[in-house]
């Protein structure tokens, strides 16, 4: 194999745009991110070193307008039949350089997919928010505020709980929603975002999906407050904090869609998060391959190149094989998303389809975490050295494994589907 681009890619299924998008992002990664990323950890609070990479990616190259309709100044990708596959390619190329920049960028798009992606485009909200992103001279971030203090990411478990654990409430007062609650950990919090997509309930304790709401809240409104960023093991480019909503008032039409359809679009964006997460991980693994290739081609054991030792070859061969398989699975997950009205005969918001995509994310997560750990061991005395980049990805991909409900949620979803469990 001559290049990491030769890992399996279903060429007959990729968008005609994908090659060009990848080329642009590859140049950004190699010039604007990778040369600086070893300094990112110490910049976790200020983002002075990190910010230029966002500026180039989101504003100069224009990717923050990608999802908006062309009529509103965007690129119209939300209307593309390839939207999941393009999102996957974006996630992979940016993730190869830095998975935290990838998540901060993709999460900006994430809550907006509920109102920008066919067939659920909310044109009034799209017109309201498009100028913020399309005309901006600086990166504009958004966040999807899911996690709550009492039950972690239980909210994600819509199939079982139907939103009944939600404690963030929305009360209609005349023509305004009044929102109260406390959220934790959203990507792009700690003062980063201009707009929050807020999952909440209009009737606390209800598991009726009609009572589930997604309400958009500009972050400069009275009653919105955010904490300082948490310090984490990795992912310095992604800031997270507490968020409080104290009688925050927004127009009634800032609700994504309305009873029923809000829960459905929320169910539809879970696969977005999962597919993007897979892309971040396969992107990071492409970079692992690059760095590992260099190491095993220059370092020796028994005075022979590492890669020419049969036993070491067994280890690195398995790592590369896993990367290839994970990429095949990642594209399949993206393709399920793009067949969103008929994936496996079910709509994308169906629990079974969500479960299958989540299952792929769980599998790829495990393999990614395992392979980065193994690659660090191949490097041995150099494995924990930031100069080799693998340890940074190792810290970051563990975070990806744990977010969005973590492993146990994935396992229970799989058991419920495959074994018809009724009480777990």
């Amino acid at each position, binding site marked *: 194999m001559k290049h990491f681009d030769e890992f399996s890619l279903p060429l007959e299924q990729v968008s005609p745009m994908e090659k060009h998008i990848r080329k642009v992002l590859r140049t950004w990664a190699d010039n604007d991110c990778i040369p600086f990323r070893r300094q990112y950890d110490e910049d976790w609070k200020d983002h002075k070193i990190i910010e230029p990479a966002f500026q180039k990616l989101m504003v100069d190259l224009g990717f923050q307008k990608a999802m908006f309709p062309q009529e509103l100044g965007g690129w119209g990708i939300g209307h593309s039949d390839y939207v999941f596959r393009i999102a996957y390619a974006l996630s992979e190329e940016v993730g190869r350089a830095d998975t935290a920049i990838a998540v901060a960028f993709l999460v900006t798009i994430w809550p907006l997919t509920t109102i920008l992606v066919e067939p659920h485009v909310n044109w009034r909200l799209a017109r309201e928010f498009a100028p913020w992103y399309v005309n901006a001279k600086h990166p504009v971030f958004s966040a999807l505020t899911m996690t709550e203090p009492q*039950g*972690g990411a239980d909210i994600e478990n819509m199939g079982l709980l139907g939103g009944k654990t939600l404690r963030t409430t929305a009360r209609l007062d005349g023509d305004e929603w009044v929102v109260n609650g406390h959220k934790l950990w959203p990507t792009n919090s700690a003062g980063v975002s201009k707009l929050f997509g807020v999952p909440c309930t209009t009737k606390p304790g209800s598991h009726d999906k009609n009572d589930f709401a997604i309400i958009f809240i500009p972050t400069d409104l009275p009653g919105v407050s955010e904490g300082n960023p*948490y310090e984490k093991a990795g992912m310095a480019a992604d800031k997270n904090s507490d968020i409080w909503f104290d009688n925050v008032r927004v127009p009634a039409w800032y609700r994504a869609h309305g009873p029923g359809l809000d829960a459905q679009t929320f169910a539809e964006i879970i696969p977005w998060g999962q597919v993007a997460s897979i892309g971040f991980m396969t992107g990071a693994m492409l970079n692992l391959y690059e760095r590992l290739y260099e190491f095993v081609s*220059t370092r020796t054991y028994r*005075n022979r190149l590492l890669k020419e030792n049969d036993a070491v070859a067994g280890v690195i061969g398995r790592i590369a094989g896993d990367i290839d398989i994970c990429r095949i699975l990642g594209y399949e997950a993206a393709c399920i998303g793009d067949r969103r009205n008929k994936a496996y005969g079910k709509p994308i918001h169906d629990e079974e389809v969500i479960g299958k995509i989540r299952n792929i994310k769980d599998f790829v997560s495990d393999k990614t975490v395992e392979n980065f750990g*193994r690659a660090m*061991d191949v490097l041995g005395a*150099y494995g924990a050295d930031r100069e080799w980049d693998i340890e940074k990805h190792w810290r970051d991909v*563990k975070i990806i494994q744990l977010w969005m409900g973590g492993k146990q949620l994935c396992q229970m979803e799989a058991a419920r589907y495959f074994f018809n469990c009724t009480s777990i």
Partner: protein
Amino acid sequence: MNKYLDDLFLYPKAWVDDDALGFAATARAWAEKEILANRLEYQQGYDTLFIEKRKKLILDIGFERLVLPEEHGGYGWNKPSSAPGILTVFTEIGRGDEAIAFMAALKYAVFAIMTMKPNIDTALLGELAPLYFADALKNVALILPGPGLDGENTALFAGRSVPVALKASQDGYTLSGKGLRPLGPGFNADLFGVVCGDKDGHACLAFVPADAKGVKKGAPLKMTGLNACRNTDITFDKVKIPKGYLINREGVITELYAWLNLLLGGTSIGGAMNFFEILTNWAENRTIKGKDIMKENPLCASVLATVAEEIAHARLMAYSMAHIMAQPEAWGGVGGTGVFTFAQMLGSRIQQACLNALNKGMELMGSAGYAKEWHVEKHWRDIKTIQSWLCGVGADVPVKMDIARYFYDCKEV
């Protein structure tokens, strides 16, 4: 949790003498008072507080002197039969902070080579002990065999490259090597323990003061964990050492590896046991599915069980290793091939088990697993750093080859 860790994680207490149990209790009190009770403050001001906590343990309590014979101001634990007790103490220190235990382990292992009965090197000890066990902190880093560079034909130790060349001169030896990657605090080292190869390719251990002429240090490296232990690449440009600063008896390098595996095993087990305490607290105070206490959910309980199993296995393996090292005559001494092989085999498994405990347990803690506030991720990074460093090069392949050579008489691997 309503039990002490030692009551939960059973171990052969009869192998640990009263002196060691007493010292372990002192080390535990140090960890509780100096680190665990002030964890948030400690974590936030780690770089500066690290030195102070270390001084308390090493200078006030005198922990490092365990390895020295009594006639050199030590506590007289310089006999292999002390191995289970030493393991117990390192476990307590690792529970508080892996980096402090790690740096102590390197120093202990290097000095064990000249202090352990029956191989006490009185002359060398007489020179080095006053310099490196004085009233200030003194750091030791190791330069071990590891990866070689393409095109360079180095001496080998069990397949691993020995990148430092040793030449005899009229009044001592000269050491040369470029871009050497130490194990430990290379940047702050006062003394290097250097595995080097003589003209016949025989590996031996040299002691190189960091201020010797020709020792060149690079810029400090950024590492995954053990962050207060600042490392850097080293070059030896024809560094001269006296004749007495070299130990080339048979089995000296294998003995060094045996001690490293034991002490770093204890270090990681201690860290993993503290993680167990944190995880237990988490699982008793969090709900899932809107109602169940986490530890009462069978899937979560299964993961919790795996964490406990891994730590318990690691601890039992470590005491088995210590027991073998405590009475090694039957296997050719601590530096014998049998002890070396079992130390490598068990040492590798101990590190993997501790890391697996962390990896699995973190899955239950979600974002708290990687937030610095919960003090878990530091254990995870520190143990991973120790584990990958111990691999040396090529993942577990060199250790597998050590095992294969011993059990199957392989000649070429």
